[in-house]
């Protein structure tokens, strides 16, 4: 993936916030019914990064999460598994052992998550630890302070260094869009991350509000599209935080389909970072199959 050039002058196209919001709203006017709905819901499940990122995470919690990842709702047959579980680096080894034999990836946040305020050495050591424990994917945060200071080359170099430290693990770069202040900055940060080698760009840590929104995600998808049109190289997208309803998730998929095309409708290229989305999707799938909504207590809360 090192065919990308290190740009020394970053310039991104202008973004018109009003227009982006209008376009994003239009996706929510799509009516997703019957087979399209069922297929969409299963796709959503298969794209979830089931996440626990709490200070009070324990071995027990991570084990339970990994079990849920493989058994979303066994009373419905034929459901897909989620794409990955996402944990802190010290739980990567455990998650790998519990998930051994499944095709579920283990993703780990790293680089002094969630603030990213540390030295490059410590961030790289953080990444190295997660990778050595077997992480398939690394979710890094960019240095928002340096970004706001205008040190775009610093931000670029840091991402490139983390990418090198990832080895074969895929790198998701978290922009923390809730701290960037404008859609113009979201676009600029997306372009920098993509140019520096990110395999995925990701909206948020989940620790800052607002987290993922459709307008922010649209701007990032357009950055991915422009890069693809120029280079033919695909980059993945992961909105994270704030997507807890199946209907909203389906509207995100419509947005991906109409902005990037069907090729991106694949867990390899699109993920939802979410902890509570899966159960709402399961509830909708059960409703499609049985015609009735089941109580929330029928769905496991791990």
């Amino acid at each position: 993936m090192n065919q990308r050039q290190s740009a020394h002058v970053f310039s991104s196209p202008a973004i018109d916030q009003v227009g982006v919001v209008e376009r994003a709203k239009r996706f929510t006017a799509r009516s997703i019914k019957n087979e399209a709905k069922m297929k969409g819901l299963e796709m959503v499940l298969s794209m979830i990064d089931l996440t626990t990122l709490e200070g009070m995470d324990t071995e027990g919690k991570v084990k339970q999460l990994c079990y849920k990842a493989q058994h979303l709702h066994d009373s419905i047959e034929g459901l897909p598994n989620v794409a990955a579980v996402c944990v802190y680096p010290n739980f990567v080894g455990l998650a790998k052992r519990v998930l051994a034999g499944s095709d579920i990836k283990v993703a780990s946040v790293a680089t002094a998550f969630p603030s990213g305020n540390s030295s490059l050495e410590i961030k790289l050591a953080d990444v190295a630890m997660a990778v050595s424990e077997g992480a398939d994917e690394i979710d890094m945060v960019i240095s928002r302070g340096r970004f706001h200071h205008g040190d775009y080359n610093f931000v670029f170099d840091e991402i490139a260094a983390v990418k090198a430290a990832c080895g074969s693990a895929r790198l998701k770069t978290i922009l923390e869009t809730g701290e960037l202040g404008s859609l113009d900055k979201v676009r600029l940060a997306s372009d920098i991350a993509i140019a520096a080698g990110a395999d995925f760009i990701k909206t948020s840590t989940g620790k800052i509000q607002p987290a993922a929104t459709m307008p922010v995600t649209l701007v990032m998808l357009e950055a991915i599209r422009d890069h693809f049109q120029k280079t033919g190289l695909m980059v993945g997208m992961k909105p994270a935080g704030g997507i807890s309803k199946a209907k909203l998730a389906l509207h995100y998929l419509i947005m991906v389909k109409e902005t990037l095309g069907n090729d991106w409708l694949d867990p390899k290229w699109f993920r939802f970072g979410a902890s509570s989305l899966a159960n709402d999707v399961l509830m909708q799938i059960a409703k499609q199959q049985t015609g009735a909504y089941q109580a929330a207590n029928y769905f496991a809360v791990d």
Partner: protein
Amino acid sequence: MTNKNSNWDLSPAPESTGHISLNDHYGVFIDGEFRTPAHGNRFQSINPSTGELLAEITESSAEDVDQAVAAARKAFSGEWSKIGGRERGKYLYRLARMLQEKSREFAVIESLDGGKPIRESRDVDVPLAAAHLFYYAGWADKISYAFPNRNPKPVGVAGQIIPWNFPLLMAAWKIAPALATGNTVVLKPAETTSLTALKLAELIQEAGFPPGVVNIVTGHGDVGAAIVNHDDVDKVAFTGSTEVGKLIQKSIAGTNKRCTLELGGKAANIVFDDAAIDQAVEGIVNGIYFNQGHVCCAGSRLFVQESIHDELIAKLKHRMGTLIVGDPMDKNTDVGAINSREQLATIEHYIEVGKQEGAEFYQTDCELPQQGFWCRPTLFTDVAQSNRIAQEEIFGPVLAVQTFRTVAEVIKKANNTPYGLSAGVWTDKGSKIFNMTSQMKAGVVWANTYNLFDPASPFGGYKESGFGREGGLHGLSAYLEI
């Protein structure tokens, strides 16, 4: 399980039509009642997306027009001009609310009759029509504040002729300011799209308007001519083609009839190289493919700064590929049916002209339904100012793209048209917007958006796009002796 790289296509999501009520045939609405004229002449109103018959509509005679004008005169001299602005406002508020309550039925009928996507009739036409009624209801008791120290008086009987592209919305645009200012009206909807105006007449009846305040006669062009030429009509308001607008001007010359005309357009939509390009693409699509391009203010001439031409056209083609063309009643349809066989023939003729002129032709490859009248979203690049497709109004989903180099050049080219209804400017630079908007000879100039309407904003043309303004404070003055 999910298939990788699956084609995830939307399932049909048809809006139900079971809840609407349509008669087999409609009479004319005169003096507060539906009348079936003795001559019994009728024509058929069909669904342009299927060719199916929806209802039979009365072909009004000169005598019917006479009766309608007489009823309007009686109402004007009688109750309506005496009850005062506050009471008139109450009637309009009531009508606006009733329209909102029945918005679903109106949206469905509008899409069945005109071919426009249900998404548009539901989200644009009907809500905007209600918004116009609300807006002018608010003015009804404040007219003297709108024109201080002028003692404004209503004009009298207004003859109003509206087009087929926004049937209900145009009826609301015409009726709302006329009634708010104390006039009475005789309205003629277009022959292919009379149904929502007749349904509006039912609401007017139900709302208890005094008889004769609103009269609706249906039929073809000669019915319109009979209204225009009627001796007892004080004011003519017409929205439609420039050709007919000129005929109206000629026929009322020498009379003391007042007149406003909202006619054709060939709007320039101008994209500078510093524009937010993805949002500009969205605005281009909204400018020309909204309502199948049956929009007088459609952004049908696209001017792209040459340095971003290839990138923008690639993005535009990609976006066009995501437009869903087909059944207007499907909630996911973006582009519906062409309004009539005649209009489809006109559009196809211009597409041929464009090809013969040597412009580069592009259409999306979407499938079209077997029945009905359809045209794929169409793009011509490499167009020159001297091409007919860049000069004449096509009134369909056909975009003519030209390039430019400098601000001065694009202003000159954009204004180089007999029309002047609307224009669009796309740039990230505020100073450029102000420079452009002050130099464009167009009644409406949109900056970084397109086809955005609001009842408070005046709408109307320069040059052969007509004169007079509808909407806002300006819209009141057309119906007042000030």
